[in-house]
């Protein structure tokens, strides 16, 4: 079975879409940035903001308003309640602020049981997560560090294996991907947690795969077709690697979709970030990395070559 079967030398003019792609990317990124500004920052999960989350399962569908009233009657006013997972799981996630003495206290489960048991005799406290404010700040720093380290290593590696132009274009594409995923989390009002950062870094690695495969082919084709223009070589290279790009994206999407649908609520956001990331990463290696490489090559042609014209 085959699809996208091109004859040798035949190609799709991807670069002709570069303006459309630029507008598309700009809308995605600016939309995300606007959303982050409108929400006054990202909606951090407890990993970054600190606090306590308690996952509780009920034997009957929980009524959030009633529960909220309940907690407030028992002197717990600052709790945040939300349903967790599918409705039929009958689970809620209870959020306590960092300064709640109950969170790290020795009475957390007994207190919750005391409040809830009379109405819900068969509840189960399934998970408790507390992150101190100091740890939250530390994790924020490590998250930023991790992303910078990854990008730095990538820049270095690609610059050594290719040229700085490719290195910079790859970084532009990666930053693009990270911004789009982060923006998407803000637009959809999803919590930005540590696992999402893990997903982001995976996306960085993944998106780079695609970019490198294309760059590798460009380098090879530059040696092979010395008479072709740079634009043409790029179009040809993207076309030649297109079926590989789509197949790999396809198989990765298959497993990510499986994780998203079957992996459970705990890794749901993680899987979602991967889902968006894999799609956007595939797009960016074709429509962001290569056009930027063209742009940089025109801006600063490699020494010893004639200025490139398109």
């Amino acid at each position, binding site marked *: 079975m085959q699809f996208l079967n091109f004859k040798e030398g035949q190609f799709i003019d991807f670069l002709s879409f570069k303006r459309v792609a630029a507008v598309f990317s700009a809308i995605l990124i600016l939309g995300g940035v606007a959303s982050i500004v409108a929400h006054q920052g990202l909606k951090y999960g407890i990993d970054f903001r600190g606090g306590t989350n308690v996952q509780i399962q009920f034997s009957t569908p929980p009524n959030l308003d009633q529960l909220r009233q309940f907690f407030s009657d028992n002197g717990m006013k600052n709790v945040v309640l939300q349903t967790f997972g599918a409705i039929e799981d009958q689970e809620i996630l209870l959020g306590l602020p960092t300064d709640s003495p109950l969170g790290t206290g020795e009475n957390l489960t007994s207190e919750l049981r005391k409040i809830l048991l009379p109405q819900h005799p068969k509840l189960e406290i399934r998970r408790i997560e507390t992150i*101190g404010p100091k740890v939250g700040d530390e994790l924020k720093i490590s998250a930023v560090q*991790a992303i910078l*380290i990854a990008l730095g*290593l990538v820049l270095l590696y690609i610059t050594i294996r290719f040229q700085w132009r490719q290195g910079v274009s790859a970084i532009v594409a990666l930053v693009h991907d990270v911004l789009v995923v982060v923006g998407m989390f803000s637009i959809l009002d999803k919590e930005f947690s540590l*696992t999402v950062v893990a997903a982001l870094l995976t996306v960085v690695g993944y998106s780079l795969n695609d970019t490198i495969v294309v760059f590798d082919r460009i380098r090879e084709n530059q040696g092979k077709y010395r008479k072709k223009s740079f634009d043409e070589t790029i179009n040809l290279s993207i076309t030649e690697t297109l079926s590989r790009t789509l197949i790999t994206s396809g198989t*990765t999407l298959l*497993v990510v979709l*499986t*994780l998203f649908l079957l992996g459970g609520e*705990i890794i749901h956001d993680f899987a979602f970030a991967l889902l968006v990331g894999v799609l956007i990463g595939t797009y960016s290696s074709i429509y962001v990395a290569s056009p930027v490489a063209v742009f940089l090559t025109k801006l600063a042609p490699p020494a010893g070559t004639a200025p490139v014209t398109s």
Partner: protein
Amino acid sequence: MDIKFKGGIILIVLIAALYYAFPTYQAYQPGVDPQTVDNKVNLGLDLQGGMYLDIEIKVEEAVKEIIRRTAVELEDLLIDEQVDFVEVRQTAGSLIVEMEAGKKVNLELAPYDRFLVQFDQQPEGELTYLQLKADEADRIRESAVSQALEVLRNRIDSLGISEPSLQKQGSNNIVIQLPGLKDRDRAIELIGPQAVLQFQIVNSNATPNTYNRLTEVVKYQEVWDKTTNKLISKTPFVLDKKILMTGEFIRDARVRIDSRDNSPYVALSFDSIGADLFAKITRRNVGRNMAIVLDDKVQSAPVIREAIAGGEASISGQFTVEEADTLKIVLRSGSLPAPIEIREERTVGASLGEDSVTQGLNSLMIGSALVLIFMIIYYRLAGVFAAVALTFNVILIISILGAFGATLTLPGMAGIVLTIGMAVDANVLIFQRIREEMKRTENPRAAIQEGFGKAFRTILDANITTLFAALALLQFGTGPIKGFAVTLSIGIIASMFTAIVVTRFFFDIVYLRKTKLHKLSI
């Protein structure tokens, strides 16, 4: 490379992989206790249920405590030696000895010189500053952490967890892992308190408004309603600042029931030094009240009716039996050298862990099945090669995790699932190359050679950069993210081996050995 040689290598790796993966298979069979099997993949606390705690030892408090004790000691010594001093003050990292005008004391001479082992002195007129030496402070901090480890280990032993783990992390953190823990509150109760027991004399003549701030201190007795967890009363006690005795001499602690009102109390027995000290203290203070202070809260303040010689004391309060039991355990294991703070807690119930395992395994199986089916449909025989290589890949990952006794978390399982999606990339790169080469040449043999050769460099580049991302994640130290980074890294490396060596081997034995080769199933 010779086919036989290559086959030999693959066979050895396969046997090794099966050998190292087997304990994991064995350990998680129904009816088997995983703990009886060594060299298996351990399930993280998020998968088997349990508690993860990251606590910070407030080591600066231990340093302050040493300075405080030194101040008291020095003051006592100056009084004994009848030196004319005004007071010994304590600041953040130092002591200040203030002499009366015109008077001097030479700290370099005995009996004061022992203080200069830990402190540097700097005289300025009537004032002498004693600064704790930096290396001494470091030593105090270090020993506070190792002492805390010891004490916490003793306390946790009483929880009856079969494989608890306590590890020092960074300079003053301790990570505690309690797999299979059922009662979360009980663990916090045991781990949390510093359990510093102090005996101080009550000054019944002073009130909280009229007491001598230099020699006395106010501490409170709190009474809590056990059913509502609300504070009922808070009674102040004016106490002599001097701490007559601490809990360090406790030899044993037991819970007893008071026959008069059936209330539980904790009976202490001191070692011989403690017994002598306690006898001396009680003899000197007959008729006065002695407060028993636990973590700066007054538990009780009974009247001393007579000198107590037997080295026995009791702490009563409004304890429930369970509270008395906890107190017994913490007093037996000794006090923590400094207070602790919970930095991070992750507690997962066993049933949620089981659900996560099921969900993780389902994703793994269905995800892999989808990818394998796609590969076989799209690349036919070559797809079958890839499918076998991928299966090999998963066994390899499990065996490597097992060989290192690594821990598998839910994100770690996601990492394996993801690796499968990405591992086919190497195969796809090779197969697409071979297809391209097939258009160019009539010779399938050359197409295979060229395909593998040209794809190799790309595979290497692409995988190394993904490894960078995984490495950047490893800096998150412990926790779920590390599990993901570990499986992702192992998966990437394993996938390069299976795609480049194993898939290639199949091509070699199926196609390259044929004398007449016209067509490839790819």
